[in-house]
């Protein structure tokens, strides 16, 4: 159990880091939409619409690190399996 929890903690950290990097390493807050600008050819005005898109931010990294810490911390309450001694 201890090893499973520790492995999960590492996986959570890796997944969060990969997601953060893959979505553009945004150093602001997590975004669930992005601003898209389209030019109106007659007036020359740039119209703004929002497109749904997940961009992980530092809060996402923080929550993931907290979760990984909890998993790692919980793993400390479990004893490591000691190799069983066999009597001859």
């Amino acid at each position, binding site marked *: 159990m201890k090893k499973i929890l520790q492995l999960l903690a590492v996986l959570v950290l890796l997944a969060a880091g990969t997601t953060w990097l893959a979505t553009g390493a945004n150093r*602001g*807050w*997590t*975004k*669930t*939409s*992005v*601003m898209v600008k*389209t030019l*109106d050819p*007659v*007036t*020359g*005005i*740039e*119209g*703004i619409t*929002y497109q749904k898109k997940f*961009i992980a*931010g530092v809060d996402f990294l923080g929550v993931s690190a907290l979760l990984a810490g909890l998993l790692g911390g919980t793993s400390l309450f479990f004893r490591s399996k000691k190799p069983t001694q066999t009597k001859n």
Partner: protein
Amino acid sequence: MKLNHLIPLLCLTTAAYAAPETFDFKDPKGVNNAVFKLDAPLESVNGSASGISGTVIFDPENPGATTGTIVVAAESLTVPNPMQKVHLHSEHWLDVGRYTNITFEAKSLGNVKTEGDVTTADVSGTFTLHGVVKDITVPVKFSYLKDKLGARVPKMNGDLLVIRANFTIDRRDFNIMKGQYEDKVADTIELSLSIAGASPK
């Protein structure tokens, strides 16, 4: 045709040509927008508003006499982070349930310069935000696009008036969380307005 017949006809033609036009800024295409930007030491907030309406009376022969009101629905203010949007609309910040509109009423124009169909001017008027009314002057660019409404909205004839303005306000002047969260929410709010109004014929 006698001269005494020509004079009233000439007067009528001149009056029709020089008449001020009323432009409606409720955009059926939804392109009109106001962008806001706050750059604090710890955080930058960028967003926009699309709920724009209002009317402007503009005379292409006398742009200096322009008056009108532009209204932005406070609820249409959007930022890409959903939690930030909830905070922005909440009673602690803009309180959009109570203060439903952000308005600018243009009262007079100064430093008016016209080149072709483009007029620049310093527009003075009252800006209302968060229930606080303040007199401000903002640099504005007017572009008068004669007979261009049909190119934008099919089966309609008329003129377009494009208004562009970039200016800043201070949230402390409008009692928006005055003196609080200054490291995360900048006091200076950069506003950029790009809107087109239609005057159908």
